[in-house]
């Protein structure tokens, strides 16, 4: 957690505990904190405070954005167009809705814009959804071009900005935007949904205000205050951090290719997130590698099927057609040092070699 988030959370626990919808004094204090957090967040995002709502998680914000965006346009059409590399929250919302069309990506994980153009211009499209950058392989998506094609077709675009908000400006042209506070070092349990003026949204849930997004139940004001404070801090540090982390990612990309035989570093080497790098090692069990790295003190993720509850490989790696076994995703953060990266790079080759030897390779 970002130290600013921790400070803000502790400072607002007392005054932010009350229900901000109540009219007594403590409720009004909580309401003032909530409104200040809303205004501060909206300012960082460059949107109006009344366009922004807080949700219990990034996943909840995505479900509300996708299903509410579709419901708001139900008189125009039913179809959701989305990329094949969306967060699973979008895929689950799409499956729940039932009428969805997927647009593929190339080997680097970049959206097929020609197919996107054809799909969003087809009749009956209610909403399009695109992730700002792949959360699994880091490839930045052509959001501005995709948004322009949506505008030509008169279809609102939802951008899942979880990987970008707090790190870099999100390109304009979207109608709905979602993000997750944890991704910028904020507390768990705060998601954002922005619905621009002029974009119709209708609640897909039971509730008394159908046209203005707001989650059910009382807001977690201290967590929202911490999210707002840390978003500003992260955005202020973003440019410097991007340069530092991007150089570390370059070092990992270059060294892994050189020191580990039969490895495929995946995702776009240039048009990528500054802090994320993913590679797959041939003949290696991803789960075994993840645990071996964990024992060395490295917390990494994997898109390999053996590490998933579903025992299916990552849908992102599948959509790209890159190797899914032996997959490791390294996500760097503000606490990651150059020494940490060097130590990771020093232990990785022998761990991979040992796992391969155990498999007889």
């Amino acid at each position, binding site marked *: 957690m970002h130290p600013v988030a921790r400070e803000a959370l502790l400072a607002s626990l007392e005054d932010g505990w009350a229900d901000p919808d109540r009219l007594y004094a403590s409720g009004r204090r909580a309401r003032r904190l909530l409104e200040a957090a809303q205004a501060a967040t909206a300012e960082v995002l460059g949107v109006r405070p009344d366009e922004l709502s807080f949700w219990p998680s990034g996943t909840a914000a995505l479900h509300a954005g996708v299903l509410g965006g579709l419901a708001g346009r139900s008189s125009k059409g039913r179809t959701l167009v989305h990329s094949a590399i969306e967060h699973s929250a979008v895929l689950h919302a799409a499956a729940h809705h039932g009428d969805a069309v997927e647009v593929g990506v190339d080997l680097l994980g970049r959206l097929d814009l020609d197919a996107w153009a054809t799909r969003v211009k087809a009749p009956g499209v209610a909403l399009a959804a695109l992730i700002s950058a792949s959360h699994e392989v880091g490839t930045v998506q052509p959001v501005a071009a995709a948004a322009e094609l949506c505008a030509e077709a008169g279809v609102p675009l939802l951008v899942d900005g979880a990987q970008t908000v707090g790190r870099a400006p999100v390109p304009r042209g979207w109608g709905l935007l979602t993000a997750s506070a944890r991704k910028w070092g904020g507390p768990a349990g705060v998601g954002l949904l922005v619905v621009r003026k002029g974009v119709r949204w209708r609640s897909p849930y039971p509730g008394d205000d159908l046209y203005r997004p707001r989650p059910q139940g009382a807001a977690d004001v201290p967590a929202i205050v911490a999210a707002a404070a840390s978003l500003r801090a992260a955005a202020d540090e973003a440019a410097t951090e991007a340069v530092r982390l991007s150089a570390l990612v370059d070092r990992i990309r270059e060294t892994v290719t050189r020191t580990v035989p039969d490895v495929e570093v995946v995702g776009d080497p240039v048009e990528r997130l500054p802090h994320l790098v993913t590679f797959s090692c041939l003949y290696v069990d991803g789960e075994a590698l993840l645990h071996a790295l964990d024992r060395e003190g490295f917390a990494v993720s994997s898109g390999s*099927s053996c590490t998933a509850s579903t025992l299916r490989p990552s849908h992102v790696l*599948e959509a790209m*057609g890159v190797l899914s076994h032996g997959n490791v995703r390294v996500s760097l953060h503000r606490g990651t040092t150059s020494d940490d990266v060097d130590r990771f790079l020093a232990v990785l080759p022998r761990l991979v070699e040992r796992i391969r030897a155990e498999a007889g390779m």
Partner: protein
Amino acid sequence: MIEIDCRGQRCPLPVIALARRMAEAEVGDVVRVLADDPAAANDIPAWCRLKGQEFAGSPDASVFDVRKIT
């Protein structure tokens, strides 16, 4: 055609078996892999791309043909 039965095996085992068998095969040979792990349909073509071999198609679910070209 050379056939290897990897049904019931989890990835990367089918790909390891394929790599071993391909090392012994002659150029032009086709190795047929029977594999029902959900990752095989993705990882066998990806292996071919990385190793410069030809993925000769999947005539049926859980059946993957690879032709040795180098």
